[in-house]
């Protein structure tokens, strides 16, 4: 295949992945809509009363055959949604691969904002699919899928850039190490942020309505369980982020820009994100900050993370992270001024 063919193949794969995410989202929405009619399970075993591990709590009481039938249909849509999600992630991976093949010379697909966003959403979706069983993430499905779909659309509509060769400063093996770790951490933090948000929702509704809840919130796991999943995602993301931002970043900066820490806006915000997540980890062990405040800190963290990823590019023009601008000026012009 020619480079141009790879590129259009990649674009088609992105569109196909988007469509599949949408179908998966629809399937989960049907699942959740019909769940409203299914009576809420009670008792501690509710979370495992469905045939697929990680599935949503559904009562299998002795009520009636009709209810049982409905429960089965609901489970079917849940399973279908998960399977389509898996397929979407696979197609998403193909899109990324094709994007890398479209460049001359072939390279990792992390040269500009479009490619970063494509990879970032992939990691979020991938982690969700992989952790689905382990952490019983069924309750997260509609939110993760809506998030991935939205960000993917933003990438295609506003951030799209044709395949182009890497600028000189980016062509280093540190690109692979630095960016892959930053993106993995971003994926984990995003999932952690979603969990923390749901923790707040659940906690608030428990405080307001007590155990008599309805709808989606009723089927969320207990706050303690949400808090634990959130902590695990963050505990995974934080060392990876440390590695990306405070080890490989400075090493590469030293090689390319001659000093390991430049107080470049991207660096500053990566540092801010790091400090906020450090505060989150501390807050979890501090009396009076546990739970609610820690969850709010996790949300602040995810906000700084995504602001750094996209937002700061519109606020500051001094960044040396050359992928951030539209058409990067030759580095000589930038650095000559200093």
């Amino acid at each position, binding site marked *: 295949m020619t480079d141009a063919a790879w590129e259009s193949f990649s674009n088609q794969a992105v569109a196909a992945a988007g469509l599949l995410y949408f179908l998966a989202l629809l399937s989960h929405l049907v699942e959740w809509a019909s769940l409203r009619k299914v009576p809420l399970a009670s008792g501690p075993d509710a979370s495992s009363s469905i045939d697929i591990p990680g599935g949503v709590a559904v009562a299998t009481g002795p009520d009636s055959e009709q209810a049982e039938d409905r429960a089965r249909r609901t489970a079917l849509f849940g399973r279908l949604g998960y399977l389509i999600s898996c397929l979407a992630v696979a197609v998403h991976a193909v899109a990324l691969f094709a994007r890398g093949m479209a460049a*001359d010379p072939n390279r990792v697909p992390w040269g500009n904002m479009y490619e970063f966003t494509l990879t970032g959403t992939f990691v979020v979706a991938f982690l969700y699919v992989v952790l689905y069983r382990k952490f019983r993430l069924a309750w997260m499905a509609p939110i993760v899928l809506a998030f991935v779909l939205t960000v993917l659309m933003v990438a295609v509509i506003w951030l799209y850039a044709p*395949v182009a060769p890497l600028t000189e400063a980016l062509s280093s093996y540190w690109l692979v190490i630095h960016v892959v770790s930053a993106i993995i951490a971003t994926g984990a933090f995003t999932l952690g942020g979603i969990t923390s948000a749901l923790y707040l929702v659940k906690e608030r509704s428990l405080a307001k309505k007590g155990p008599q809840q309805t709808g989606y919130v009723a089927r969320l796991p207990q706050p303690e369980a949400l808090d*634990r999943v959130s902590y695990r995602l963050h505990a995974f993301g934080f060392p990876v982020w440390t590695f990306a931002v405070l080890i490989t970043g400075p090493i590469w900066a030293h090689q390319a820009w001659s000093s*390991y820490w430049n107080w470049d806006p991207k660096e*500053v915000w990566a540092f801010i994100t790091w400090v906020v997540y450090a*505060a989150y980890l501390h807050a*979890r062990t501090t009396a009076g900050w546990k739970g609610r405040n820690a969850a709010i800190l996790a949300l602040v963290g995810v906000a700084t993370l995504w602001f750094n990823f996209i937002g700061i590019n519109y606020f500051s023009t*001094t960044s040396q992270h050359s992928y951030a601008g539209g058409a990067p000026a030759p580095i000589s012009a930038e650095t000559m001024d200093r």
Partner: protein
Amino acid sequence: MSTVLSTRPPEDDRRPGELTFRELLRWIWRQVTSMRTALILLLLLALAAIPGSVIPQTGVDSLKTSNWQSDHPKLTPVYERLGLFSVYDSAWFSAIYILLMISLVGCIVPRTFHYWRGMRAKPPAAPSNLTRLPDHATYGTTEAPEAVLERATALLKRRRYRLSTPDGGDSVSAERGYLREVGNLVFHLSVLVVLVGFGLGSMFGYKGGVILLVGDDFGFSNNLTQYDEFKPGSLFRTDDMEPFSFKIDDFDVDWLTTGRRAGMARGFQSHLTYREGRDSPEKKYDLRVNHPLSIGNTDVFLIGHGYAPTITIKDAEGNVSGGPTPFLPTSQSFQSIGVVKAPDAEPTQIGLEGEFYPTVAFSDETGSYYSLLGKPYDPMISMLVYTGDLGMDDGSSQSVYALDKSKTTMLTKKDGTPYRLDLRPGETAKLPNGLGSVTFEKVPGVEGGVQRWNKIQISQTPGKWIALTGVVMALIGLLGSLFIRPRRVWVRARREGDGTLVEVAALDRSGGGDVSVVVDELVATLQGPPDKREDQS
């Protein structure tokens, strides 16, 4: 905190709640080192770092900062007073992180002692009622309690638990995961190490830049006078500069000829010849972006390049001045701006200002020249001519890329349009009114006949290895403190009726761990495989 007071009767006429100086100090120390304060300081640090990412910083980009300052005359004095143009050196930013460091030390020291004691302590005895713990299990068996406890001891020892069996007791206590706290301490200590490394770098290091022309006639030797810009740390001494020297023999650019970014430079490299000391042998190095040259403790980086057209001005009396003049690239295709000054020209000073195009093209749309490609296929300069006082005599420093036009007049044609010099290498133009002539010299042996320059950055960052070691240690410590799970396990067996009742309980001490799995697994192993159990019953 005030309970400290109540242990002693008031010995003077203090009002209740009043603190002595020592007590006040102790109270402050406790406040500063409390977890809550550390947390607030962390958040403050994050908040304080924000302005520096939005407001241009002198230390990061001084030109952009001064431009911003002249655009905002009203805000500038306020911002200056607040230190907002150098946030990361400002008193308030330093105050936050110094307080944070004090708080950190205040946390680490007592915790180290505490840990040291805990390290040698035996696992605590089993609570009297194990079934009150959230994660527990019980089962009955016909085995003797001693046999069960013996097996439990062996089992837990194999899993590297630290054990204690109180004399004559009916239970086993086990604990593991001591390294979590070590990881925690290592992480926090490493933060201090990183700070020391970072501080050494910014105090004793320097960073400088030089624009060096390519060719044997030009060279650089490492002393202060040769730098175009120089940013030393506060404690930097010039004796620390290493006596190396280098010159650029040749410079290659790999131009993209096809695809969307055709005309752009994909890669470039400088072929250097350098000496590490005054009398050291000559060595060669190909300098590229991302591939710096290390000489001793100093690193040499290639960070940019451009063209330096050789322009000479011959004045009315025949005096020649000028030479290769670095032009500043402004686009991907190396359209560059530059200025040539002839302050010694007679009868009047002459200044040229204009653009250089490596491969010139004319746009009908804008009615002006532009550069098609960065590679010099058809180089041309297009300059305007200014005469009069260039303002160079008052001794103040001037940018080499700008012309002070306040006391000059621009040469015009008879119809009033600007007099423009469009020259290709080897061409000469006569200036009107007998002022002299300007030549764009063709340099032999150079691609396109146009001289090149390289921007070389030179920096010395002592302590960078300390900082790196610190961060790596911090990461290792962090992994330990996040993923080592400290837990306690108790097994109690006692006779009850005919058989033995075995109770197993576990406690996760990190929070967030799920120990019910540990209990279940331990019970299953203690009971043995199902068929064996059958035999026993």
